């Protein structure tokens, strides 16, 4: 399994917030068309880490990054890579559904429009429909695209956010606890969706829910106190963890 192509990787990544070192020497490879789950107790640096992968952490005042992040062997913090272009290639879904306070259609059409990916009219209509279908939302909202996105249910809003991210055809999708604010049925839908999307892109997902990690991911990384304790195939990590800390965490003895 590990001979698959590496889509993204970090090498010795360190993040500082002022004097505080939030991540220490994190090196993880992410393989193409696989789902990698990042697990660990609150405050362990998972979210900080995933936000470094599309340079969202740049926006946090007083943060400083050392180390390297590669996308297809290209260093994303190098000057040749533009953060705006990077975020088109590496999409993101957030913990709380955050649709724009606009119509369903506008939410999906926004990113393709600013990147000039589709012309107004049928081309854009087509792209909106495709993206909503990919996110499994077309059946539910296809006939009310002009409705405000905020009138959808929480689960639908989150899938709309996924459709919005998919509309620019990213190569990697980052998901920061995408189901933590949803009920079990909506969570189930998101998980099914992750399974389907895997064939199109590389997915990195932060989750608090270990069952979820074991259900959806191919590989899992366990974070603790800003460090990566263990990275392995999900099945191996959950059945035969090589570190004691990992075992204690996944069996629920702490965290």
């Amino acid at each position, binding site marked *: 399994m590990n001979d698959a192509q590496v889509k993204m990787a970090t090498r010795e990544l360190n993040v500082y917030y002022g004097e505080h070192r939030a991540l220490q020497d994190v090196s993880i490879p992410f393989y193409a068309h696989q789902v990698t789950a990042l697990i660990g107790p609150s405050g362990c640096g998972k979210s900080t880490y995933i936000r470094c992968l*599309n340079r*969202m952490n740049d*926006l946090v*005042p*007083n943060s400083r990054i050392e180390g390297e992040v590669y996308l297809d062997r290209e260093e994303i913090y190098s000057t040749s890579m533009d953060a*705006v*272009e*990077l*975020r*088109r290639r590496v*999409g*993101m879904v*957030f913990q*709380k559904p*955050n*649709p*724009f*306070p606009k119509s369903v259609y506008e939410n999906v059409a*926004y*990113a393709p429009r*600013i*990147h000039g990916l589709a012309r107004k009219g049928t081309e854009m209509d087509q792209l909106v429909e495709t993206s909503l279908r990919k996110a499994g939302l077309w059946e539910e909202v296809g006939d009310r695209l002009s409705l405000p996105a*905020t009138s959808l249910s929480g689960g639908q809003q989150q899938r709309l*956010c996924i459709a*919005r*991210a998919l*509309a*620019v055809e990213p190569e990697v999708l980052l998901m920061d606890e995408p189901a933590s604010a949803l009920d079990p049925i909506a969570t189930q839908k998101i998980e099914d969706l992750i399974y389907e999307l895997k064939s199109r892109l590389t997915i990195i997902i932060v989750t608090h829910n270990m069952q979820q990690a074991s259900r959806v991911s191919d590989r899992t990384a366990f974070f603790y106190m800003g460090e990566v304790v263990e990275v392995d195939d999900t099945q191996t990590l959950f059945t035969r963890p090589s570190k004691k800390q990992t075992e204690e965490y996944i069996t629920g003895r702490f965290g």
Partner: protein
Amino acid sequence: MDPNSLKRTRMRYRSERRFKLYCAMALVLAGVFLVIFFADIISKGYPAFWQAQIKVDVSYTQDVKELPFLAVGEDVSELISRSWFRQLPRKLNEHPELIGTTRSKWVLADGAVDQYLKDKPNGLDKEQKNLVDRLRNQDRTKLAFNTYFFTQGDSKLPESSGIFSAAVGTVYVMIVTMAFSLPTGVLTAIYLEEFARDNWLTRAIEVNINNLAAIPSILYGLLGLAIFINYVGIPRSSALAGGLTLGLMSLPVIIISSRAALRAVPDSIREAAFGVGASRWQVVSHHVLPMSLPGILTGSIIALAQAMGETAPLLLVGMMAFIPEAPSGFTDAATVMPAQIYTWSSAALRPYAERTAAAILVLLAVLILLNLTAVFLRKRYERTW
């Protein structure tokens, strides 16, 4: 229940009732003052909207062009406003066909007659009073709607003075204030809130802006006098000088309220936009600004309403002046509504007192209208996320 705890509970309820009573009393007190204030202003100002007129036979002769007083009988001529006589020669020049005719007309009465008809202290002597009484019995006096109040500028004759020039001046001043402070304030707020890094410089600027909002407004008048009039050379008393001065004054308020409106947009929206690859300016112009616009407009309208009622800084740039003619440009000498109110309030003649109250009513109506607009905007575009 144990009696001690029962007692404590009862005491807690009692102190709650007491506190509620204090609050209600404070509300009633504030309400009473408001009612007294409005009742006083309305009762004083309402008569000014009605103005005495007298019906007289006007004979247009050739001599009237030189001596307008000859147009009416000698006895009633002192009951008629001098402003009416003044416009006679011009009228005859424009309409020469009137010469040689005599017409019965309602003409504007002198201010003292007006006050006498309204049962207020006046300067009429006994003979004049008798004359007015006689006219009244013949139905040759009336209180008609006071159009002069809305169409005339200030005048040394109270009966023909109005708020027109002050209202036009206020419009000009507000245009300047808005054109200067709205873009400057909103752009400053956007820069501080969305672009600037959080360092000692921006923090120092922020503290200074907050302090500027609390500075006595007369100091802005001094600043305006020093910069706009003495240094830049903008004409004294002009709407431009006054508007820029008031603009300086409302700038901090607009900046602060705009920043608050921008900050009220949740970060999750910014993250969403950044997350799909929007540039910083796109995040601001496509998402943050449209969402915060109602808040920005509300704050700006309130700042402008405040500027509209401001008098002290205008004192120093020379706008507290007798301006009979409405300004026709931004550099003409102008006055504003609150300045007009102040000028009238210190005038000696009695009819000015009711005009003062009437002008206050007009100003209050405009301000209430502006504030209602702000409330309407907030309600109409308020969104929850």
